[in-house]
């Protein structure tokens, strides 16, 4: 069941290889980018509207406004009552939702393919014609404070990742939480929301992705009809965020919370992003994450920290490089109950040091390559997943070509490429290490 009705998401999962398939791209005169992905196996279509606006684009002091606005988009327009948007989608048997990240805000509907025209009509309506009132803004602000209560403040793990992320960025707004800091959410008002909307919700700041049982010709015709007349923002500001200075000193933090059941150690390094036309480094980082902590059984962390000389209950590594400004490489573990955090962290660092000295195991490397190739095949089974891949990429400055090249780039990565990025990224001087501890540790 859908417990979470409208929310922000974090993409920590692997950017899985994308596929070849009939994908068409075009642009309307008012600047709207359109991508069409054909999958005729079921009479279903997904429409996703990706706005190139996210939490990292918010004016200082107004954290949370991008996500707040995501909620407000379901309120009244000049043509529709509050909530009527979702009522219309549901009356067609469809479902709809939205999510916000640092680099984008996305709205989507999944419907029978012959209802796509109606979806475009109402999505176009709310691109410019929302009619906000103080009452609506106040009630929805309360919903968001409850959302923050539920998803962040009730969960020490979420609070901890908020703190470590803030420590990772001295200057870049990737350090603020997508949902916003509580005191800043509480101060958001209608005037802020309207100014934000007027500037950023515009066809020249959006990417429309349609996937499913559709043809590019039909999508173009519908898009011209519904989105074509929507006026662009003439003076759309460029996406220049404050950039991060070089990190020169390791950062560490320790957080204690009575609700923590067992300690958790995490580290994140600033890492290169996927660069348009040059994704080799990002592809190598994906291998690096898989080799170090991808599989709970055969990765280096699993072998060394869970099997050979057990120090951890769980361990992991991930790389997220689909971002406008910079990627993140993360590691972490949950120590065994009788293992002290400093001991667990030292063991993790030893695995990394040994890896940097000896390089990857060739069979392990080849297994990952095979799995990435298979991921491309399995990925074709999910049209919405494909729409997401293209939409996310185009929202952060990548191209359709980049998405289509990605599986091949992944297949061409060599062990030498992996070692090169490993030496570059795995440097504690550009990392944040955090310990989340229970109360007992706090007492010591």
């Amino acid at each position, binding site marked *: 069941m859908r417990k979470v009705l409208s929310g922000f998401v974090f993409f920590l999962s692997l950017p899985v290889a994308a596929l070849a398939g009939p994908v068409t791209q075009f642009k309307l005169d008012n600047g709207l980018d359109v991508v069409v992905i054909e999958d005729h196996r079921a009479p279903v279509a997904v429409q996703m509207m990706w706005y190139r606006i996210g939490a990292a684009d918010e004016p200082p002091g107004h954290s949370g406004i991008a996500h707040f606005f995501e909620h407000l988009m379901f309120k009244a327009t000049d043509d529709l009552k509050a909530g009527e948007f979702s009522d219309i989608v549901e009356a067609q048997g469809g479902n709809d939702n939205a999510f916000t990240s640092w680099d984008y805000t996305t709205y989507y509907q999944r419907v029978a393919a012959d209802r796509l025209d109606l979806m475009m009509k109402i999505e176009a309506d709310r691109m410019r014609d929302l009619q906000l009132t103080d009452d609506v803004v106040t009630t929805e602000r309360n919903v968001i404070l409850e959302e923050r209560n539920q998803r962040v403040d009730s969960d020490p793990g979420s609070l901890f990742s908020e703190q470590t992320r803030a420590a990772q960025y001295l200057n870049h707004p990737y350090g603020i939480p997508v949902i916003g800091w509580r005191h800043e959410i509480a101060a958001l008002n209608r005037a802020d929301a309207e100014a934000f909307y007027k500037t950023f919700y515009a066809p020249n700041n959006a990417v429309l992705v349609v996937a499913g049982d559709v043809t590019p010709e039909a999508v173009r015709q519908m898009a011209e009809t519904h989105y074509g007349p929507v006026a662009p923002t003439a003076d759309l500001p460029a996406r220049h965020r404050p950039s991060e200075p070089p990190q020169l000193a390791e950062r560490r933090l320790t957080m204690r919370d009575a609700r923590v059941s067992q300690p958790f150690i995490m580290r994140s390094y600033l890492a290169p992003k996927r660069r348009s036309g040059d994704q080799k480094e990002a592809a190598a980082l994906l291998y690096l994450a898989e080799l170090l902590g991808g599989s709970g059984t055969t990765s280096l962390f699993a072998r060394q920290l869970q099997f050979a000389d057990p120090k951890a209950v769980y361990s992991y590594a991930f790389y997220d490089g689909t971002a406008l400004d910079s990627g993140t490489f993360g590691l972490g573990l949950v120590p065994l109950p009788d293992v002290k955090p400093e001991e667990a962290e030292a063991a993790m660092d030893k695995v990394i040091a040994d890896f940097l000295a000896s390089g990857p195991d060739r069979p392990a490397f080849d297994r990952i390559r*095979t799995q990435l190739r298979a991921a491309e095949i399995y990925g074709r089974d999910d049209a919405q997943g494909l729409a997401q891949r293209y939409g996310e990429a185009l929202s952060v400055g990548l191209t359709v070509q980049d998405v289509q090249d990605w599986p091949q780039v992944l297949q061409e990565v060599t062990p030498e490429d992996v070692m090169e990025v490993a030496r570059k990224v795995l440097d504690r001087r550009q990392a944040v290490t955090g310990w989340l501890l229970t109360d007992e540790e706090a007492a010591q």
Partner: protein
Amino acid sequence: MIRRVLTLLFLLAATPLRAEIAIQEVTSPGGIRAWLVEEHGIPFTALEIRFRGGTALDQPGKRGAVNLMTGLIEEGAAEMNAQKFAESRDALAAEFRFNASADSVGVSARMLTENRAKAAELLRLALTVPRFDADAVERVRGQVLSNIRGNAKEPNEIAGQVFNRLAFGDHPYGSSGDGTLDSVAALTRDDIVAAHKAALARDRIYVAAVGDITPADLGALLDQVLGGLPETGAALPGPATVGLTGGITVEPFPTPQAVLLFGHEGIERDDPDYFAAFILNEILGGERFGSRLMRELREKRGLTYGVGTWLADYDQADLVAGQFATASKTVAQSIEILRAEWAKAAEGVTEEELANAKTYLTGAYPLRFDGNGPIANLLVGMQMTGLPIDYPLTRNDKINAVTLEDIRRVGARLFRPQDLRIVVVGQPEGVTSTP
């Protein structure tokens, strides 16, 4: 987070299939039956297997045995230890997932066409000759204990456990299938072997496959993978009596936001009024933004981020239940609204509400059938529920046949505000436990 309480919520969601989806019944030479949809567009097959029984098969004092056993299936088989097994599986890029729920042990597999025979052989070894090596048992036991410790500080989990204990008492449904710190610590390798024999047997198998495979190949695969399992497993537990009484149970927990989990006895899946109940639940607290509870609690008053209700059809019991979270100071107000809506649901719905729910449910049904994995999952669930193979073709007719009078009749029987037990985990202001 809710899964524990409700297992079977959407098993019956399904419908007018697109014409080109044809479900075939396949019987293997060895007599194992499966439903198959051939889809040769993408070179892989999604396979879903269920063994009826699940964690409810745990013997007294052995709570957590089936769950721990399930976690160990992939941790070494035949000549391979855990790492060798994982290496072999990953080299084929096959994906296996094993999970234990209250009423079943489930296997979800995806196998590439290019190496399906080898992948199936690995799956056979995992299911039929798992090793349960001592080091693997200790490692996975540690993970389970870690989960149990984590759940003890997670408000949704606490709510589920308190609610299930009140609802089912000593029946296996009354406690977490993970077991307790003590019961899991005490499990021996013999207990795990016994759980394996009890839970994975041929007299309780349900299978669905969707993808790039022919009926003949599927038949051979079924015999290969499942043919070596024992003929019979353990007896299922008896019916569970729902012991919930009306009132409030506060479980104090330091958190800024309270979790509320509520419900009482529900309606059987084969009750003639089941579809009416299903629609009525949809209107009260179903998956749409437009449900009554969503409008009252979220849209009008901003009291919660989300609220849902469901019909939980366990094999041995039925509940109608729901859940939401709200700030400590708004718990009392929210309970008042919840009780009023529960009472209102007993009185029926308007013509417009019924029409909207029907349009939604009948329209949404075919959208579920997209993708090999999702379809296999639906088909195996239908078999476990005992639905006929043509059910997807008739399901929407059954929804459309429900009348206002049907809803009123079932509402009066199903929604009983005086019996509603509300578990509150948190620090609610002005709300205390009642007997």
